[in-house]
């Protein structure tokens, strides 16, 4: 196929892919009055930042942003630490019940989160963490996928390296910290990005376990505002833009790591 034909096909598909984001952007900067006129909104006749100032005036956007960063960062730290430790054990250590346990963990990937939310909710209440950030953080940090990724990656670390260190008298913790982890920087990058992204975007579970609006994260607030704004898409899209902008910026800056990481999830 000719290069320019290929370019034409790709560019058209990209235009379609970009359209929803473009629509969000345009509507976020369109005055409320225009949106209800029923014309096409492919270009705002009058550009305004009212939707944003209105949001900042009425709601604690700063608090919600801080909450989001805090919850996503702590979840990521807990999840990645646990996943790396477990991944090392499943990849490099022989212990009783290793294979059945790994299979059991993998099978939890087939559980849709919403299907076990009622028992999870009772568990969180029983542990006395309902209504706190920990009710969001701890259940989210329990992921099978991260263990799966960590194990896949660590299997590629040569056994000879570990044996050599063992002969020199290094214990497993030393080997893990000094030899395996430095070789796993790409893995750590993937786990951090995926975990942070998943937590940043989660809205249903936090909405169920966080009761006070002061503790809301951005996506929870977005869902909450959907009820407040009804069909005022201007305000809603402004908030949607604020919610996804940090991840979009992060993605564009770290695209190489993101893509390498995602690609690695598919390697057998």
């Amino acid at each position, binding site marked *: *196929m000719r290069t320019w034909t*290929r*370019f034409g*096909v*790709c560019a058209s*598909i*990209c235009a379609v*892919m*970009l359209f*929803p*984001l473009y629509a*969000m952007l345009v509507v976020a900067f369109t005055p409320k009055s225009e949106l209800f006129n*029923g*014309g096409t*909104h492919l270009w705002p006749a009058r550009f305004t930042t009212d939707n944003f100032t209105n949001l900042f005036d009425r709601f604690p956007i700063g608090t919600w942003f801080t909450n989001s960063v805090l919850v996503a960062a702590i979840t990521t730290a807990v999840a990645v630490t*646990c996943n790396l*430790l*477990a991944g*090392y*054990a*499943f990849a490099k*250590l*022989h212990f*009783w019940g290793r294979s059945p*346990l790994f299979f059991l963990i993998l*099978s*939890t990937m*087939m559980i*849709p989160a*919403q*299907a*076990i*939310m*009622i028992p*999870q909710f009772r568990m969180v209440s029983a542990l006395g963490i309902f209504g706190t950030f920990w009710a969001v953080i*701890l259940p989210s940090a*329990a992921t099978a996928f991260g*263990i799966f990724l960590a194990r896949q990656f660590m299997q590629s670390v040569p056994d000879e390296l570990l044996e050599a260190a063992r002969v020199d008298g290094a214990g497993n913790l030393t080997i*893990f910290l000094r030899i395996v982890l430095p070789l796993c920087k790409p893995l750590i990058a993937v786990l951090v990005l995926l975990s942070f992204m998943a937590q*940043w*975007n989660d*809205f*249903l579970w936090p909405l169920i376990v966080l009761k006070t609006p002061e503790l809301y994260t951005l*996506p929870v607030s*977005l*869902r909450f505002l*959907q009820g407040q704004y009804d*069909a005022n*898409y201007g305000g809603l*899209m402004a908030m949607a833009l604020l*919610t*996804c902008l940090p*991840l*979009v910026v992060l*993605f564009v800056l770290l695209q190489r790591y*993101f*893509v390498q990481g995602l*690609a*690695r999830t*598919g390697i057998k």
Partner: protein
Amino acid sequence: MAAVETVDRTTAERGGSHGRRQLVIREGVTGYLFVWPNLVLLTLFLFVPLGWALLLSLQDAKSFGPATWVGLDNYRTLFTDSVFWRVLLNSLVFTAATVPTSVAIGLVLANLLNRALPARNSLRTIIYLPIVISGLVTSLIGLLLFDEGVGILNGVTRSLGLGNVDWQTNGGLAMLSVVLMTLWTRIGFAMVIYLAGLQDIPEDLYESAQLDGASELQQFRFITVPMLRASTLFLVVMNVIWSFQVFDVVYVMTNGGPGFSTSMLVTYAYDRGFGPSRDFGYGATIGVVLFVITLVFSLIQLRSSRQEA
């Protein structure tokens, strides 16, 4: 925690018996020392809730009043519940509409964008971008596009003189709108996986095919597609799981409507458990059935791929 303690005790008892055996046991203990933080989290928030859901599915449990054991009554009700069969069918239709399409588009795009092309990196970025957009934001954009009253698409069709399209009141079109927004978030991932797979195909395969006079299409059909089998299998398994577990887009965009025409297994389970009826037992039953269906499907996929390999 408990597991670590038991293993600890056995080590103490057997300590100093045989050197090799001791080493094996010590590695066993270390294994659990590394696994336990994760195991505690998984036990508390996945294993126990799953078992709990299994028990709930055998109970008549509502939000108030004591729960009573009812045996398999919930399952019996489920199999005669016409809404359940309807949402199962919807989930199958949704899966059939999303999985092959997203995988195929990802395959074509990966091939188009694998070779030198003007602005290649920007084009790739645009296709990847929806991966980081959350299900909630995707759904709200979907509402903005497909809203029958003030939505953008109807604005366009109206100004072209084509009138309104009933995206929200026609069941089939509502399903289409949900499928389209889902594809939007999934194509990028398929492309990432295929681009990675393409790097592993040896270049000389294509060179010798060209010498034999194979056309571009033949090379694609007889070299590229077969060599990407592993990537395809992975993508199909992941996409089927995601499609069967679809929630956000349906919940926010259509809430299952109009009627039950876009209601899926998970949204139905959620509606029954958390909705006005607060029927915990019945909601859990749907969840258990969904888990079993997904598990069986994945096992069949893995088994058949192993046999072919």
